């Protein structure tokens, strides 16, 4: 099995890290489950949908978390969120070379909505604390549930995001938007439109992810190591100048593309010839073709 998309969180963790290097914190055997699901007659999971721990990546000591999309869509509840917070806070103490977050999540778990919402904001702050302490945080997105809601925000708080074309990164899912504002607003069954809007290629073109890779572990690993190497010579912390640059980038994006109604119009506006063919290209050829046009390249 070499497909990131088709793997479980546990398989991803094993495949991503060096052989036999993974040590789990609060493993499933401890059976720390959500305290809120039972009263709703909902099934629980012994790891509450996320595994955390430390291991080696190409010899580098790293911390790592992997969300399991098969359990409640990877959604964040009280325990799930606390495991992520604990991991990020421990990273500040133990100082691994990086924290790697393999994210797959629909966002806040509605079964424990209030606790989940607070937990996601705690994850954001813990992540930024880790960055401020000089620990780079790298996110990988390539699971079938995508990375949505609060976790879509958490992802963009990290130093770098690696996505596959199959990965999706956004805030509200198409079904939520269709329910709120009608099928004319966003047809959630139009899969091509859904991928154009939130898929890895569009995110890569806009500068919302730093690498687009094929759906295989070797490609993800190589891109993660690349991203980590940047922070051997550069601070992982937020800075006023970097955020002013981001402000300018987001402002320009709004000014240039704010009138577009389809991502295809954005790609054409960027000057990419034959933009219609972009969804058909495999990752490597796609990256080569769009290199002169892609935005947000520092």
């Amino acid at each position, binding site marked *: 099995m070499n497909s990131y998309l088709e793997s479980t969180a546990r398989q991803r963790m094993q495949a991503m890290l060096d052989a036999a290097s993974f040590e789990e914190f609060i493993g499933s055997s401890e059976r720390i489950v959500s305290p809120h699901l039972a009263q709703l007659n909902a099934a629980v999971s012994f790891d509450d949908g996320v595994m955390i721990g430390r291991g080696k990546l190409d010899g580098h000591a790293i911390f790592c978390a992997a969300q399991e999309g098969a359990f409640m869509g990877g959604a964040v509840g009280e325990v799930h969120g606390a495991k992520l917070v604990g991991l990020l806070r421990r990273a500040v103490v133990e100082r691994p070379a990086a924290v790697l977050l393999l994210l797959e999540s629909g966002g806040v778990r509605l079964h424990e909505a209030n606790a989940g919402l*607070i937990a996601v904001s705690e994850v954001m702050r813990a992540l930024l604390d880790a960055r401020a302490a000089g620990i780079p945080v790298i996110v990988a997105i390539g699971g079938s549930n995508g990375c949505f809601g609060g976790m879509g925000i958490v992802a963009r708080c990290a130093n770098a995001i690696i996505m596959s074309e199959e990965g999706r990164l956004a805030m509200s899912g198409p079904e939520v938007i269709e329910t709120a504002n009608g099928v004319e607003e966003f047809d959630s069954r139009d899969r091509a439109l859904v991928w154009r809007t939130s898929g890895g290629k569009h995110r890569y073109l806009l500068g919302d992810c730093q690498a687009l890779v094929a759906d295989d572990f070797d490609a993800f690993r190589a891109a993660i190591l690349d991203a980590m190497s940047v922070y051997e010579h550069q601070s992982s912390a937020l800075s006023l100048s970097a955020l002013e640059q981001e402000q300018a980038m987001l402002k320009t994006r709004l000014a240039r593309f704010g009138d577009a109604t389809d991502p295809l119009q954005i790609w054409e506006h960027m000057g990419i010839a034959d933009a219609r063919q972009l969804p058909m290209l495999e990752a490597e050829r796609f990256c080569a073709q769009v290199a002169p046009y892609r935005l947000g390249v520092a």
Partner: protein
Amino acid sequence: MEWQTLATALFPQGHGITEDHDFLSGSAQVGTQTVAIIGTTGHTPIGVEIALKQAEAVLHTVRTHPQRPILILVDTQGQRLRHRDEMLGINSYMAHLGKCIDLARREGHKVIALVYDQALSGGFITSGLMADACYALPEATIRVMGLPAMARITKVELDLLVELAKENPVFAPGPENYARMGGVMAIWHEDLAQRLEQALAEADPVDHRSADGYARGGRKLAQPVIDAVLAGRHVLAA
């Protein structure tokens, strides 16, 4: 509550807050200090534009008024649910706002938030919930979504949710429940000006919410799990 009414109660010495398309900004006098005010009104949905405006105001404060305290006034129905916002990457705009607030804290600005009307979901997570401490008025509405919508999505009977919500702060909207879980520091019933001055004096850059949620009985597992991960041992559950 109208923001003008709120501002009059918060700032008896006067203020220079202006409203522009539901975006609030300006400054006001609190005791002896000048405070930067950034916020939203009219239950506005947070779309890419208003997220960016708030971020710009935070960065401007950090750039031109080092260490000036910031008060975030929260009134939003949540993130805007439009295809255009998603296409433009609304999560990046909201994360950017959250990061700007976090930077302000690290640069020595005290950051206080006040939910004076509505606070929902994504609109709240990158504003009020990124402050050093978030407070609320008693009549404020704070939630992820309403119970009927929650019932539809979770496929749990509405009657059961309504029943559970009476006892369990995890489902029910309302500032008291968020206070029990540590997400809201306290509810301001009266003397708003004095409460604000006190909040600014007590503001602390460390995130104490999981500890508060544990002490107040609203989130009994978050802190023990965090502690267990940190200490590399088993969870000592409550």
